């Protein structure tokens, strides 16, 4: 395990999710007790991750998604991946991409904006000459 800023309680509460979502794959119910399709449940988790302002919550959800992804990629490597597993894997990867991309876009924008500002200033000076 690597150095993280996770709050232990939050991390524990999300670590169970891969198991819950697997239950949903086999036709079970979401933790709320209502009937739910696999996509709808995981989508709710991913939406929560995206909208959460708490980085540790996002991190805990991503950890859980990565954990499940890792198990499925292992199956794939050992040629044991089922059709349902393959579908689940691509779904997980889409959610991971979605959450991480949102973080990424917000992080690097400051540099981008600074460069745009300088570029327009240079063009303005150029035009004045």
């Amino acid at each position, binding site marked *: *395990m*690597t*150095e*993280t800023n996770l709050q232990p309680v939050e991390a524990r509460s999300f670590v169970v999710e891969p198991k819950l979502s697997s239950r949903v794959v086999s036709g079970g119910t979401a933790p709320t007790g209502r009937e739910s399709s696999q996509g709808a449940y995981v989508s709710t988790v991913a939406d929560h991750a995206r909208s959460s302002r708490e980085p540790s919550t996002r*991190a805990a959800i*991503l*950890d859980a998604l*990565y*954990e499940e992804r*890792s198990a499925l*990629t*292992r199956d794939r*490597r*050992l040629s044991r991946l089922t059709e349902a597993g393959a579908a689940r894997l691509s779904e997980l990867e889409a959610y*991971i*991409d*979605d959450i*991480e*991309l949102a*973080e*990424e*876009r917000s*992080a*690097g924008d*400051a*540099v*981008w904006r*600074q*460069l745009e500002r*300088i*570029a327009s*200033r*240079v*063009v303005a*000076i*150029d035009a004045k*000459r």
Partner: protein
Amino acid sequence: MSSPLRAVDVNPTYADHPLPRTHAPPEVSGEKGFAKYRDCLRLEFSARCAYCLSHEGEVGPSQNYGGFEVEHFKPQGRREFHSLRNRYSNLLWACPTCNRAKGHRWPDPEEQKLGARFIDPTVEAMGDFLVINGVRVDQVEPTSQAAAYTIEQINLNSAAHKERRRKRQALAPKLALVEAKIEVLRERHAATGDADALDALNALESELREIGTLVGWQPTSWDMPSTCFCAAPAQQLRRRKPRTRRERRKQNALG
């Protein structure tokens, strides 16, 4: 006058040699003892991620080193490697995206039989296994299980990583354009002797240099530490005075 961004490393590439260990900090103990090595690692890896080569400045704000973290190559979360949690040679500097994806993952014996393993950039040349093609990381040898495993488990071709590379590549021509305009204006200044224009251009150059540093394209990083744990004064490394009876007993036992 030469442009400030001429000799910068716009496209980082995987090294064709193992990254040398240039720091030799003293041993530490405790569950989070390894955190003391942070500055050594930042200096040693030039504020770049050991796996994806992103610079701290590309990833996040400077207050928390872009969210970079001390990475345990052999994960401390696994019982067999827990004793290595404070061993410097087991530590790398990694971006949060790579660090999270790798987590405590490690190939099991069944996978190892197939050749699955992580590549340690301080032991092997990453460039022998991985190459950056556009926004993707590809395997140098398509049959290499080590390369495949590392790319897959660290998720080096995730959307976030690709976005980061896309931004980096999009920024390069834009910077070149600004540079070219600065050169033209300099020539005009030389011809007309306009001192105000020269001041403005110098200010722009300085800002450009700042950006180059910010995104890691300059050899010196934004806020790299001037000292690290290796260079810490001796008294800081000395064992602290025991505070409790239990600690006193322990120290007495150790002599």
